[in-house]
């Protein structure tokens, strides 16, 4: 590790802390703007004024919201995420299992989508203007344009209902072997790979093409370097910055934005948890989820920056 990377990491840590505090305040104010509170929402049609009053008291919702928020923040500093308003379970327990699920799905998806996207993006840039490049471009733009629920529902209809190759739900089935695992993850991973790869392919292709047009690549060509050597030795290291940033952005989406895939394949991840939390105005749970998304995003961006620095000869 050189000093530049070290100072970057330190300054990022500092910025991350401040960002988290700002985000949590922003989320808190946004939450208080929402109409209704947990008591009125839990009671629904039975929400008579006395009933709401009684339940609020029992849930300690009669204390000022800011006070409850600050208490949660203090608890967080001591490593306690608090208790959910909606079901009185510890938030750490609610989040733990589902966060692991989300990480698993994101991990497996990254494992497939990143190599596929990089390969397609780089080869399309190398063979720019050829039939191959055009096919890749048309397909990627097509995939970007098709909404996620369409891909997911069609995949379920084709592979689960008509062909009966794969189960339609990812969670309801027991996993006994590696084949089971592959079968269960297949459809969510295919759907998510479709969604996140397209963006990465476009970015990779554009970044590589841009560096291929630079004078030093032309120089390498004039010196008689082979095509793979030009691309991998000279062009790619300089294009890596924007590429890893695109990858990081796509992966951060996998951490918190896969609500549609979670719903359609009944996969209990953290995105749906956040949605439930907002629907029931469950402040501690909303805050905890928001912190996780925020932290995940900052972490990925920092890693992307470090990779960019280490790979770029001029920044090293």
């Amino acid at each position, binding site marked *: 590790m050189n000093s530049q990377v070290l100072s970057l990491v330190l300054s990022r840590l500092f910025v991350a802390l401040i960002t988290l505090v700002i985000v949590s305040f922003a989320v808190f104010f946004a939450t208080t703007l929402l109409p209704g509170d947990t*008591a009125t*929402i*839990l*009671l*629904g*049609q*039975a929400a*008579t004024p*006395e*009933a709401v*009053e*009684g*339940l609020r*008291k*029992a849930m300690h919702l009669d204390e000022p919201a800011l006070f409850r928020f600050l208490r949660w923040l203090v608890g967080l500093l001591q490593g306690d995420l608090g208790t*959910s308003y*909606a*079901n009185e*379970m510890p938030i750490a327990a*609610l989040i733990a*299992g*589902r966060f692991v699920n989300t990480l698993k799905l994101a991990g497996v998806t990254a494992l497939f989508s990143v190599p596929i996207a990089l390969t397609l993006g780089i080869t399309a840039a190398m063979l720019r203007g050829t039939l191959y490049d055009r096919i890749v471009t048309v397909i990627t733009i097509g995939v970007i344009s098709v909404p996620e*629920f369409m891909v*997911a*529902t069609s995949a*379920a*209809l084709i592979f*689960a*209902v008509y062909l*009966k190759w*794969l*189960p*339609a*739900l990812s*969670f*309801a*089935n027991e996993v006994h072997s590696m084949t089971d695992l592959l079968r269960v993850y297949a459809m969510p991973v295919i759907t998510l790979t479709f969604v996140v790869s397209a963006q990465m392919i476009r970015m990779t292709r554009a970044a590589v093409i841009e560096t291929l047009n630079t004078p030093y690549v032309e120089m390498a060509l004039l010196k008689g370097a082979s095509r793979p050597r030009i691309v991998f030795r000279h062009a790619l290291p300089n294009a890596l910055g924007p590429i890893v940033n695109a990858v990081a952005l796509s992966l951060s989406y996998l951490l918190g934005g896969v609500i549609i895939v979670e*719903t*359609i*394949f*009944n996969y*209990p991840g953290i995105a*749906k*948890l956040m949605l*439930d*939390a907002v*629907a*029931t105005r*469950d402040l501690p*749970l909303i805050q905890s989820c928001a912190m996780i998304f925020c932290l995940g995003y900052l972490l990925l961006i920092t890693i992307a920056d470090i990779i960019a620095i280490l790979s770029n000869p001029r920044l090293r």
Partner: protein
Amino acid sequence: MNDKITNWTRSDDAMVETAIRRGATRRELLHMMLAGGVAISAGGLVLGRAGKALAATPVSGGTLKAAGWSSSTADTLDPAKASLSTDYVRCCSFYNRLTFLDKSGTPQMELAEAIESKDAKTWTVKLKNGVTFHDGKPLTADDVVFSLKRHLDPSVGSKVAKIAAQMTGFKAVDKQTVEITLASPNADLPTILSMHHFMIVSDGTTDFTKANGTGAFVKEVFEPGVRSVGIKNKNYWKSGPNVDSFEYFAISDDNARVNALLAGDIHLAAAINPRSMRLVEAQGDGFTLSKTTSGNYTNLNMRLDMEPGNKRDFIEGMKYLVNREQIVKSALRGLGEVGNDQPVSPANFYHDANLKARAFDPEKAKFHFDKAGVLGQSIPIIASDAASSSIDMAMIIQAAGAEIGMKLDVQRVPSDGYWDNYWLKAPIHFGNINPRPTPDILFSLLYTSDAPWNESQYKSEKFDKMLIEARGSLDQEKRKAIYNEMQGMIAQEAGTIIPAYISNVDATTAKLKGLEANPLGGQMGYAFAEYVWLEA
């Protein structure tokens, strides 16, 4: 399968089957089919299919997996807080009630051996012997007193606090006997006790995540917003359940729920969309659709104290202008039963089957509109997605009006804020009412002079008096006679048009047997897990 018929679904089979049971002649049946657009040559095929009766004996074993439509972190195993169908299904599998409703809507004893009263005010509940909770503790009167009394505590947040408020005194007479005193006589107590919120829990329970009930399944897993798993209760006091374990979760996306059923991942998909019915039926005999009409309805309200509803002839004209058959066929896509302008649905024991729905008669409607002097005026009708299917219904009524020169202006307003801004307020608007277990609750909520939700501002002293009289009477025949008359009064006098009762359709694999319709709602009144079985 049905080669020559294109618009015939299995719900029509059910219709034909009911007609055969009622003793319809072949001529009548063929007439029914012609009305449904079926060619005569196909008639024999349909009759053969509908006549196939399934006699079967329960089979033990297997893991039952079913999916509802809504679930969140607010899922609860506390019966008092249960708010979604998912909660009802879970509570029914882990707990028992004192009574439950059978398919005819009559209360039957569950944990109670007998519920008796001489004056409908003081009730004695005798409990069954030999019932134990999952933790081994025997069921006693104290548990029942605790379970009922907690609804009165505002900090519990009970959904039925208002209904429970009439229970003013609870006494454990001995280990097996409870005495309940009501604020005023109410003969419906056994039916009220069959509501899902009145499940019996163990005395002193504060942590409901253990689901320590007396029910058919013992809780193994419960993750709010994810799933629950119950294992067969080996010491269950009834016979059953048939299956070894029961897993329940929700898939909120309609298509995904149906796909999961068709792919064989689940045995039951609750409340499927009418559009998905064809997809399920196209799969052949491997799947079954079962329809439940439990009393939910969307109605057109005309306030009797505002223009133009204060003109009697306008109300009469509107009642003739509504084409109820067409509303069921197009607006509800066949998933409904024609209604007769009163809120007690055919699923209810007290429904008056002799009260016929008013026939669609544009000529008579025109006559009344002419008399009221409203022809040629433009009359606004407020409809919204908030009241399900109301926009389609409004369109059908509007089109019928246009035929006779009655100009109805359908104003479509957003769902958000509909219940606060338009419902009960606009002169002509749509409402949507959820099923309620007794006529008494429906009438006192919607039609008495002091009813909080009196949608058409219907006021009748005679009606109010009859309600009190029926409530306190223990003579069932007499009550039925009074409720019949009251249904007639609402249909004739009130300004509410109830064109249809909306049905709910559950789809199951054909392997799942024993599922019956129940007036408390779909999925066999949410209690199917205990009764169904899986054929190998």
